[in-house]
């Protein structure tokens, strides 16, 4: 399968300052990859490098297997919002702006324009000039513009900044649906809770470097059991055929299963060995805490957490 987005040792230097340094990641079709990190971490620069708006000092970018600088036509498969808030001609209405985008994209049916306007809840405001749009409306129109051509790759820089909670939910569900339909989504965001809810992977950036990548999809498959003896429980579960991985965290044993239906097997297996199961449930990943740990330099703890399951 062709990777939708691939960056290899991507670096960007402005004068003496290296704003992006050796960033490598991959996004497959159907995946949602979120770049998170504090302001100035280099997320926007990475997005501009990936979309071909900026030139890397070192390293390579590929979109659907092609370099966007050498083959600009690969952007036919791309939908992107790189300005926050999304930028439009203020003297044109929302619909006219999308019509202009449609022309630049090589032609999109009026029905599709109506469809994306409806999808983003902008049907009633479509005839209003975008100069009087609120921040949230402009952001939603930005996502509508990106979705116009049913792109195979969606790249969005802080698509939900300045949005109210309902609009925020709308944008994230649109991106989630696009991924379900096979689009690869790369976004930068500060909304960690939404990221955990539907992203496949998260790249944590700090000072221009990708300091960590978390496979959120795999983490969603984790379970946690509070037990009377976590070390013994780990030793027992390690050799069970229905266990893929197992580790401990405090009083808890954390594990992934070969099949979700095997959860009851874990309880019976531990009970047989006289280990009391005091609580059992999905191991909800606390990205916020993990992120704070990584950024605060408390990497030993973070690594220990990561190593709990491997």
């Amino acid at each position: 399968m062709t990777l939708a987005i691939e960056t290899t040792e991507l670096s960007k230097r402005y004068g003496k300052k290296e704003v992006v340094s050796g960033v490598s990641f991959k996004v497959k079709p159907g995946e949602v990859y979120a770049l998170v990190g504090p302001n100035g971490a280099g997320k926007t620069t990475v997005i501009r490098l990936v979309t071909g708006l900026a030139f890397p000092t070192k390293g390579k970018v590929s979109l659907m297997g092609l370099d966007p600088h050498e083959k600009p036509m690969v952007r036919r498969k791309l939908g992107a919002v790189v300005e926050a808030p999304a930028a439009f001609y203020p003297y044109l209405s929302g619909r006219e702006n999308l019509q202009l985008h449609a022309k630049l994209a090589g032609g999109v049916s009026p029905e599709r324009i109506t469809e994306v306007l409806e999808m983003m809840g902008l049907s009633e405001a479509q005839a209003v000039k975008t100069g009087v749009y609120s921040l949230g409306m402009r952001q939603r129109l930005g996502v509508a513009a990106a979705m116009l051509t049913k792109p195979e790759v969606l790249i969005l820089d802080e698509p939900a900044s300045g949005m109210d909670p309902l609009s925020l939910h709308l944008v994230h569900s649109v991106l989630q649906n696009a991924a379900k339909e096979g689009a690869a989504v790369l976004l930068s965001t500060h909304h960690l809770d939404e990221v955990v809810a539907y992203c496949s992977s998260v790249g944590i950036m700090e000072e221009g470097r990708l300091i960590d990548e978390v496979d959120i999809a795999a983490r969603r498959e984790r379970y946690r059991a509070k037990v009377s003896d976590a070390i013994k429980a780990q030793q027992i579960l390690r050799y069970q055929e229905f266990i893929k991985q197992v580790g401990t965290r405090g009083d808890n044993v954390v594990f992934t299963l070969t099949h979700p239906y095997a959860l009851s097997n874990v309880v019976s297996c531990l009970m047989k060995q006289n280990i009391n199961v005091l609580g059992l449930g999905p191991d909800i990943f606390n990205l916020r805490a993990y992120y704070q740990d990584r950024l605060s330099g408390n990497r030993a703890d973070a690594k220990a957490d990561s190593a709990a399951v491997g």
Partner: protein
Amino acid sequence: MFKLSSIEFGKLFHLTSLRFSLIALILFPILWAYAPGIFQVYGFFIVSGYQVPALSLLSSMEFLLPLIIAVASAELLGLELAHGTLPTVLLRPVTRSQWLLAKILVAILYPFALLAFLFVVSLVTGVFYGYGSFAGGTGVGAGGLLGQGILSAGGALAELGRAYMMAAVSLIPISLLSILFTVIFMNAAGGALATLALLISMKLLIVFPGLEPYLLTTQLNAYVAPIGNLGITFALIALYAAIFAASSVILFERKDF
């Protein structure tokens, strides 16, 4: 390319500078046509409506038209920078060169459109003088055609048409220079100001007589030159235009956004 150019032409009507330019180009002929001191400045009285477009051109080619053209061309690109739409447009499957060339095409045609507007407004303004034959100079042509005897209505119109056409052609490099500076500075005000600063500096270079025939500012007088002497002028204008356009495209291709 046609589609891109038509989109860019559409944007032209939303330039702030266009509105101010049109107002200036409406007021300018009216003021000059009925100004009491014309004889003191140019040495003739207005006796025909055909002299008004000539006067408009004579007085505006010195500063007003280069200014208007430089500002509008800078704003063509500056509009995208101000609205933040440049990255959005460049993310579509259009090459940077194609997009900038569409802007350059608009910048080339803009002086023709503007001068056509000035010509029409000036002609209308001169209606009270009538459009008959006259003597005493039109204000365009070598020496303002003073002392050339009677100029027929048809002759005056042809002379004006030629002068306006040449004026528009000579303004093309200024338009493209302004685009080039805007690409360099990525700022409309910076682009327009740099263009005007360079033009003013070039005007000072007349102290080097050997350079003068080749200066961009010298070509702005092409509209009063005899038609037989325009070969080198055309070649120089084409050369300047080609250098400015090519430099803009090359620099734009390498810009980070």
